[in-house]
């Protein structure tokens, strides 16, 4: 980076420089730059990908990926101007990108004291949109399922297995945890490689803005490209109902930590894919109709994964046998998953997963208060809605083996009496919702849950 210094607040333009896919190496190369600074190149590696059978669709998916993945670099300086030096997006695509950069960076902005509303405007073609439906590509009927090492994707996997669905499990980047969990399913896997530009780390040292990015949007775009390369007609994620709920509303702003896991993004991306890339490539979240509690209830039954999965937000890149090496016990994800599993599992089995009883630790009172939004706002994490956490705690307050534990007792004595009666029933929370975009072949899946 000789000759160029990164002055965060002096930067004027973020440039989308180039995006190429090399079929010989299976590598996508995404290039970005600030002003006339050094180019920042991200690479995505698709191991063993065959030569593209649908080059046009691949090109479109690559462009979309380039534009979405730029968010990691853009946020380092958040300049006023965005320049696309590759194909300029049409209006529909640009609208989605504006949303990804505003809503997806809402938490980042809020925490850094920025306000991106009205500041992001992707360039767009003035020509009329090229129709509303892309051609169908006769993609093979099989699913590319994103797996994250946590409970949600494993519930999806087992549901799809019960349907007899042909599937491959996939994840982006190195993760021994995910690899180990995926191996436990016994299903075929695909590990896509991703390397961020090293320049970004250098910028971080030089005072770049930092914070949360909509990583699910990026992974979704990577998986859509993968589906076209390897031949899948469905890209399946496992985001639930609660991902759509706002984490925080303040000063007229809505901030949702998991915006790119929410239903609005899912629908927008799915319809853009149908319109611009392939009419028969579906993108959806299988668990969209379910609450977190409904998911944990399902997961509790699959004890073969209990000693292997982790939903902890610390990314332990080396696996250890100790619970402490999979669950930090200190983050909201650990707290929520513990709480949400508790009503559905034998207590000794649950505490064996975490190596400790988080509900009996008085020091965690504040953390659990945040989960139930009791004199606190919901944490910036992918956790269930307050109603779910409240219902789970209320259920435990009625259970002899739990009710004397410090935080359950405290909830029962101090908080429960102040909550509106009738708001704590778990049953309505367990019933599948109707807001989802499941292709018809999966619709029957939730009948069993509906009846349960």
């Amino acid at each position, binding site marked *: 980076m000789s000759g160029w210094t990164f002055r965060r607040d002096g930067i004027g333009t973020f440039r989308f420089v180039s995006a190429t896919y090399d079929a010989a190496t299976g590598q996508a190369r995404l290039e970005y730059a600030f002003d006339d600074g050094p180019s920042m190149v991200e690479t995505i590696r698709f191991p063993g990908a065959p030569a593209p059978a649908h080059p046009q669709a691949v090109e479109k998916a690559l462009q979309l990926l380039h534009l979405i993945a730029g968010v990691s670099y853009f946020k380092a300086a958040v300049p006023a101007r965005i320049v696309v030096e590759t194909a300029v997006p049409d209006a529909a695509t640009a609208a989605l990108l504006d949303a990804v950069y505003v809503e997806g960076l809402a938490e980042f902005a809020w925490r850094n004291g920025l306000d991106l509303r009205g500041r992001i405007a992707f360039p767009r073609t003035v020509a009329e949109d090229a129709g509303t439906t892309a051609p169908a590509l006769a993609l093979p009927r099989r699913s590319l399922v994103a797996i994250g090492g946590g409970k949600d994707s494993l519930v999806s996997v087992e549901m799809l297995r019960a349907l007899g669905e042909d599937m491959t499990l996939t994840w982006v980047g*190195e993760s021994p945890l995910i690899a180990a969990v995926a191996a436990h399913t016994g299903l075929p896997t695909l590990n896509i490689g991703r390397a961020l530009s090293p320049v970004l*780390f250098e910028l971080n040292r030089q005072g770049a803005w930092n914070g949360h990015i909509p990583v699910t949007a990026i992974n979704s775009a990577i998986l859509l490209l993968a589906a076209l390369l390897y031949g899948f007609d469905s890209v399946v994620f496992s985001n639930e109902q609660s991902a759509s709920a706002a984490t925080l509303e303040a000063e007229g702003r809505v901030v949702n930590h998991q915006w790119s896991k929410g239903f609005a993004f899912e629908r927008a991306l799915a319809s853009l894919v149908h319109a611009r890339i392939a009419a028969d490539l579906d993108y959806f979240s299988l668990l969209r109709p379910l609450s977190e509690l409904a998911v944990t209830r399902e997961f509790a039954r699959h*004890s073969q994964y209990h000693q292997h999965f982790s939903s902890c937000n610390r990314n332990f890149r080396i696996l250890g046998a100790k619970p*402490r*090496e999979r669950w930090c016990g200190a983050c909201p994800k650990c707290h929520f998953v513990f709480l949400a599993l508790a009503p559905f599992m034998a207590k*000794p089995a649950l*505490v064996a997963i975490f190596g400790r009883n988080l509900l009996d630790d008085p020091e965690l009172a504040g953390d659990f208060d945040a989960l139930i939004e009791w004199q606190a706002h919901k944490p910036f994490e992918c956790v269930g809605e307050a109603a779910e956490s409240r219902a789970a705690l209320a259920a435990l307050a009625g259970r002899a083996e739990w009710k004397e534990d410090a935080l359950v007792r405290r909830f029962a004595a101090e908080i429960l009496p102040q909550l509106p009666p009738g708001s704590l029933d778990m049953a309505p929370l367990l019933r599948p919702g109707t807001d989802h975009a499941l292709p018809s072949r999966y619709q029957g899946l939730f009948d069993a849950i509906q009846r349960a």
Partner: protein
Amino acid sequence: MNASSNPALPPDAPWIVLKFGGSSVARVARWGSIAELARQRHAAGHRVLVVVSALSGVTDALKAIGESADVGERRRLAEALAQRHIDFAAELGVDPALLAPWLAHLSELAASGGGSRCQGLYAWQAELLAMGELMSSTLGNAALRQAGLNSRWLDARDCLQAQPQPNQNEWARWLSASVPAQRDDELRERLAGRNADIFITQGFVARTADGCTAVLGRGGSDTSAAYFGAKLAAARVEIWSDVAGLFSANPREVPGARLLRRLDFQEAQEIATTGAKMLHPRCLSPLRRSGVPLWIRDTGNPDLAGTEIGPEAPDAAPSIKAVSTRRGITLVSMETIGMWQQVGFLADVFEVFRKHGLSVDLIGSAETNVTVSLDPSENLLGSDVLAALCEELAQFCRVRAITPCTAVTLVGRGMRGMLHRLRDVLADMGSLSVHLISQSSNDLNLTFVLDEADAEGLLPRLHADLIAACALPAEEDEVFGPTWAQLYAGDRASRPQPWWRARVEALRDIAAARGTPAYVYDLGTVRERARALRGIGAVSRWHYAIKANPHPAILRALETEGFDFECVSPGEVDAVREALPGLDPQRILFTPTMAGDDEFADALAQGLRVTFDCVEAVRALADGRHGGRSIAVRLDIGPGRGQHAHVRTGHDSKFGLPLADLPAFVEAAQAAGLVIDTLHAHLGSGVFDAGHWREVGLQLASLAERLPTVTTLNPGGGLGVPYLPGEPALDLGALGAGLDELRAAYPRLTLAMEPGRYLVAEAGVLLARVSRIKRKGRHVYVGCDAGMHTLLRPALYEAWHPVVNLDRPDAPRTMRADVVGPVCESADNLALDRRLPADTAVGDVLLVDIAGAYGAVMASDYNRRGRPLEIVLDGGAA
């Protein structure tokens, strides 16, 4: 030797029962040893009964057949088993046709899925399970005969008759049967009349009163050997396996655990019940009742005397023999509700446990509370039984289910007589969440039940504490044998001779010429340790924690070896700068504790690297005067580790930034323009678990993922130095491999470490002169001119240092004495209850070993006894 050459023994010749497990009998080479062992015992005038398990893995395969509802699968599994035995017969070089009747029966059983003469699923399963031993013993008999022994195959079912027990359910009657085991003269006569002196039979297998086959359940082969030993009134039973016996702690966690050479039955029973997997507790009681000793031996090392278990020695002094842990314990605490002194409360409570099929282990009771422990069982983990139990108990008491817990048990005879020696153990426990303490009514165990998370890494520490406090008297070599590491860890355990062994003369001369007390440091040893650490490629920066020993010669030697420095005070910084003028200030890491704002500001102004561990100190720099500088943050990531509560530094200590404060810290650093480039955690000292630093590093790395300015992780120091004899050295190879793995997983991050003690402890000795020898009753005090003012560690931490009489280095050490100093404090000691030469005399020079760390630097002039000399040897010259 041929079969007929075994001379017949007289009918009343004593018996020896030899038992071999599945992994022994499944190896062809082992049968040569088995035959040899039997031959030796026979030659010494014993009749021999060999009891064998099934080939390893066979019982599990038979169990799978017994649990399968699919006849095709059962046949397939049975055929695979048959083939395995035919192949093994071929390997042994014996005729596979010998197996024919068993294989036919196995195939019949697998096909029928029950319905044999003995009705019922369990009876069928038992008959199936017995096939493994019936086949292995048949092959074994052929192998023994082939080796020239006149051995006879014996059907265990003709000797062991199961007897139904009160409260025994149907399952247990067939699959976990019990056999009454008194001396059986009929059996002795029957076998004496069989024209052979060596027999081979099956473990695990027995017969019911109506002539059907039953099996003995888990650990069944050991139990069979015990039954036979009792019935034959054997001279002893020998259990042969892959390890020499029981150890003073689980060797997987404590490589310094001692082999237990001699135990009485009750102690052994207690050890087996509280965690040792080596021996099934069930096999001891038949032997205890009939007074037949049990020996445990290592098949791979037959000449090593293993553990010998026999009747209680009448003059045994109270001592702790072992410490064990059991995880996954659930405690149920029941508080009576207004039923104080109500008759029948306990009866009601236990009735509920019985009803739910839960067996209670430990009990603690008070007037209004009863707390019991439940071991982890499939039932407890896989069903709602705990919920149901608590629900029912809640009808008449207040219930609390405390889990997960770990039970830590000290085992030894006369526990109540040793409480004074448990000061440190109790202090250790005091800092943990202990829910229940149970002292067994037979005075053989003391159990602490605590939070499982607190028990991590506790066992090695406790074991060392118990030895240092002489509660586990490891120097008693009639009871305590070599360490596990010495027996099984190869090179790692064989520590080189200490450097001073070759310089005894020179040290005596130094003491004479320069006076005592004097510390003597060998720079060669410091360099050796430094190079060993620098060999760990994963670590790019080493800081010597100079508080261990700030002697300028040592600082200079380490600088030459490429070490940087870690200082905890401005004084230490000055010491480094005086010893090494012109040293780049960036090579000094300043990590003070509780320092004031000025100290931090000064350190930054001097250009040192600085570690912070509280938010306020960073907020004080908000004016940005050090903007752009990189800093480290020391985090409190969890429970500390180390040999003594005073030297552990996790929760409940003043060190480290709580994780909950990290976001505020990051914000404050940003506001001050400081860049956090290093995450640091130091969890105490004296750590021998080579995986520790990888684990700490991993915790730090997972935090660093959210802090993009971080480039370096510093998982601290605390590398253990073995003070106790036979204690294995820290495995630097394994330590390095763990860190390599960490580096590979987080290539963006580099590693730094900050050892202190490890570099200098073994390089230093303390020389003292005996000033007085005093006897009080049976107690001997050897007084010398060094004391707590010279070496504080024994008084402060109950630290254990080896002590040698340099004037009589090779004399037999037969006198037990306390080595004490001249300070008017009762804690003034250097070593308690040690063995010294009986002729130790006033004027002798004593050497206190491994005194190079935290020795001279902690010395004082208390009592105006003066400070010790410090003498540096470099290549032999003082």
